């Protein structure tokens, strides 16, 4: 039996009929065409599927869509404030060369947002432990850590 659920994704409300065994990751990617959220390991290890659900970073591959009913979700598509402007985290990732193949980037940026929402002035250790659930096989992490530190500085100035 399908369940009717209501999700607020990046500010837009969607009412969807979903099978109970479908994950939030599948519904975001397949039903809402928000393919910025990736599917990596499918077991909660790699973080490529990270989204914010009611303000908390979670693995969308391990979250049933029905369990997210009534929730507010932010995906990487919801980071940029407009079609012309990027989020300071995204700008810093580009400037610092923190993106190579890009597969981990969306998840990395949402883990960065989750960190900076709670700790606007993180040290290097804070940043590294905030990324403990996000794997990157290209960059070696240093540039990602630098980008998040730079984004923190920028966000403090802007807001």
């Amino acid at each position: 039996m399908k369940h009717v659920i209501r999700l607020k994704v990046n500010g837009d409300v969607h009412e969807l009929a979903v099978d109970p065994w479908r994950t939030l990751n599948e519904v975001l990617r397949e039903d809402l065409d928000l393919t910025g959220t990736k599917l990596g390991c499918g077991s909660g290890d790699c973080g490529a599927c990270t989204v914010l659900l009611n303000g908390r970073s979670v693995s969308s591959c391990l979250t049933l869509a029905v369990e997210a009913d009534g929730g507010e979700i932010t995906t990487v598509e919801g980071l940029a404030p407009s079609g012309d402007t990027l989020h300071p985290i995204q700008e810093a990732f580009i400037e610092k060369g923190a993106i190579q193949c890009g597969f981990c980037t969306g998840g990395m940026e949402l883990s960065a947002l989750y960190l900076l929402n709670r700790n606007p002035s993180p040290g290097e250790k804070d940043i590294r432990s905030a990324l403990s659930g996000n794997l990157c096989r290209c960059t070696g992490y240093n540039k990602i850590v630098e980008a998040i530190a730079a984004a923190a500085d920028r966000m403090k100035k802007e807001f």
Partner: protein
Amino acid sequence: MTLSRFAYAAPRTIKEACRLLEEKGDDACLLAGGTDLMVKIGHGRARPGTVIGLKRIAGLDRISFDRKKGLTIGATALLADVAAHPAVLKTYPAVAHAAGETANVQIRNMGTVAGNLCNAAPSADNAPTLLAMGAVVTLVSAKGERRLPLDQFFKGPGMTAILPGEIMTAIFVPLPPPGSGTSYQHISARGKVDISAVGVGVMVTMKGRKCLETRIFLGAVGPTPLRAVRAEKTLCGERVTPALMDAAGLAAAKEARPISDVRASAAYRRKMVAVLTRRAVAEAVDRASGKRR
């Protein structure tokens, strides 16, 4: 990864959840954070006909601290919330530390302490400290409620004393006795994210430098978390010196029953039991004396 098909129910009360579980029997799986269950379903190691989500049950995620009795952690309280709770940090620092060191950020935002216990991996990070502190779990079924000391809960890898139809609703941790201190120490290949190769939970009760009582539990070095009885005896009634802490560590290493697997060899695990037991006792003793929070 596509999951096998199942029906889903989200009861609003414990009573309704118990009734559903009784009705569906073995065909149902309980879902709290999902971080273990979803992986099992994805890999075909669980094939439930019905998944019963517990997160919509009001109040089940409560963490409450009673200054006279102790700490109660509701079954759906998140690892992240236990790790950051002010009363837990102040009075149960090792419980907070174990919850905050479990897996990674996202998993701690989804997973629960109760789920970590019910999954019953020998390596469960939250088990050793709770065992050392004498935690008691509440198990509820359509027939009623019972309270079971956590040291009678684990039966083997993935096996617990939970009977068909029972739901773990809460974990109660008694107030630490005066003069006591606790610690959880663990080690893994990467230090974060990955499953612990060894974990040690300790509670000591001190009078000055003398150890009046201690409980020491070892994780990931046996089919269930193990109580290190000989290590406890080494310390009990004695003046605690660095040499005695070394001796307790070596006693614990002898009691451990580690296996070699992808995470560590048995020999390495045994050595680390000695090291981590010594460190955990030292930290617990420091905390007991108020030297460290």
